[in-house]
């Protein structure tokens, strides 16, 4: 059974009298443990699709299932639990809480799951060390560089040891070397721990770790290319 299954997904945004058709009948299947790269021009609906994959948004029509469970049938609280436990989301705009330190930001998903304080702190430090921010744990987001914020966001996405990591341009703000470290981290998650990774990227390096590349154009998948 595929981990994620989308069929006939459409997403319309209403702007006054006109509609923006961000997704227009999209089908997509993602298997457990694979790394999928999502590419496409700006405005082609990549972020929109990621939000639907991560149960952050609901499609206008179509069917979305996570682990065989239709998302439409879940209550709001069940969706919250799903997001908290199974999905790690790295946003294109990071979305860190400005009032909290790097460590607290990474702890946040664990707080809502009720992870005990000590365990939480240890895990946050471990993850921040993994992304190379061991000496930045007390910094607030506005005291971090763009690349550092992005890495905090990645650490946070990993906090609850999710099944799937959805990363919207995770290396967009990083130099080749740091970007390489992050990509290697994601690759290991997939290879070693069997995690599923979907990443939106324009980075040829990132495409290289992906098992599959999916191109979006005008709200539809136009090409799927399997990497060898």
């Amino acid at each position: 059974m595929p981990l994620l299954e989308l069929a006939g997904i459409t997403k319309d945004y209403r702007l006054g009298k006109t509609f923006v058709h961000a997704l227009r009948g999209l089908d997509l299947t993602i298997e457990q443990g694979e790394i999928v790269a999502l590419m496409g021009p700006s405005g082609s609906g990549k972020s929109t699709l990621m939000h639907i994959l991560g149960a952050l948004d609901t499609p206008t029509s179509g069917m979305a299932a996570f682990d065989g469970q239709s998302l439409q049938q879940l209550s709001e609280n069940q969706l919250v639990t799903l997001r908290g436990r199974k999905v790690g989301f790295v946003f294109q705009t990071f979305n860190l809480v400005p009032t909290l330190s790097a460590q607290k930001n990474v702890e946040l998903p664990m707080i809502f799951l009720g992870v005990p304080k000590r365990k939480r702190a240890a895990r946050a430090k471990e993850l921040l060390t993994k992304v190379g921010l061991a000496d930045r744990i007390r910094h607030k987001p506005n005291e971090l560089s763009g690349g550092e914020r992005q890495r905090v966001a990645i650490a946070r996405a990993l906090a609850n040891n999710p099944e799937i990591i959805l990363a919207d341009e995770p290396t967009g703000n990083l130099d080749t070397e740091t970007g390489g470290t992050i990509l290697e981290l994601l690759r290991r998650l997939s290879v070693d721990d069997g995690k599923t990774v979907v990443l939106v990227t324009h980075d040829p390096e990132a495409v290289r770790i992906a098992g599959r590349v999916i191109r979006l154009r005008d709200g539809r998948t136009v090409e799927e290319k399997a990497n060898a």
Partner: protein
Amino acid sequence: MLRDFLVLAGSSILHRKIRSWLTVIGVFIGITAVVALISVGLGLERTIDDEVAKVFGVDTFVLAPRGSFGPARSSEGSNQYALDLEWLRTLDGVQTAAAVRQRTAFVQGQPGPEGRLAQGFLPVMGLSPELITSFSSFVGSLEVEPGGRLFQEADSVVAVLGREVATRLRVDVGQTIVIAGDADKPEITFTVVGILATADDERPQQGFTSGMPASATTIYIPYGTMESLWGPAQDVLVTLVRTAPGRDVDEVANRAQAELRARGSRVTAITYSDISSAIGTVTSTVSAFLAGIAGISLLVGGVGVMNTMFTSVLERTKEIGIMKAVGAKNSHILSIFVIESGMMGLVGGIVGTLLGLGLSAVASAIIGRMFDVRIAVVASPVLITATLGGSFLLGAVAGLWPARRASKLPVVDALRYE
């Protein structure tokens, strides 16, 4: 998890220091006003109560003319009543009783230089000697001029005169006056044993002097002797009754009132608790009025918190989206924001309570200096707990609405909010 929410709420409060303080100020001004006004009210109440207890004693009650006290007060009817004082003294539970009766009588004094007798119609008051011996706190400072004395229990045909009467009748201590009673009774000659010292106006009148002012124009004779002039008492102004130790004053007072009424005395028994509750109604009306005014400022404070919470929630819409995206339920969001606004309310409450108590102490001292009394400073535990609980609630309620609104926003919309 509650602890974590406290930390989250706290860090957000600290992050917006100035605004948070402004909100807290909005709350504590209201709370300060409420606490100060209520505390001063309570202090006044306590002070009056203490004063009443000091004069009255908790074991004593007063028999006043019926209808002269309480809600059914009327100007109708006589302000004097019939009384069998000897019978009252034998009533179960009564230890001592003392009464005052008053008449106007034709009185003759000593001859003047032309040999004419000084004479006139003058008020004559019969006082139980016990009034002076046992109820001194009621009588206050009755003092006689040097060389004289007040009368004692054994005295019968002695009189104490007010200064003005003594001058008018041309008598001095040791001389005599003649008082005429009812037509069918013989006149009686009294020896003047004392002349009341004129009250020194500098000193405020103390004690239960309203019933029997140490009047300069009155002649005082022993209560018992009044009977020889006017027969059994029909003309009592006031009676003081002390109950036996350990007896329930209110019970004895009620019984005395009922039985005296049955015997034809138109009396009302007033105990310490009657007086304090009568004063209590007045002071609590005043307190309630003051608290009402203070409540308005509190309401303004509450609206202030709501306003702050509203802006705070609005500008953190994105943050709410983030928290929901990483697994926060609506109830979590709600808790965090309600705790946050509740904490601001509580801090405002603590600061306000402290300031309010301080202010009430200062106000009491000033009022006390103005009226030359010591006003009790009351820090009521009930008031303090209620205030702290109330201020937390105020903040929480003020934060509830904006927080609910924010928590209901769809995640993606919240995330996109700038």
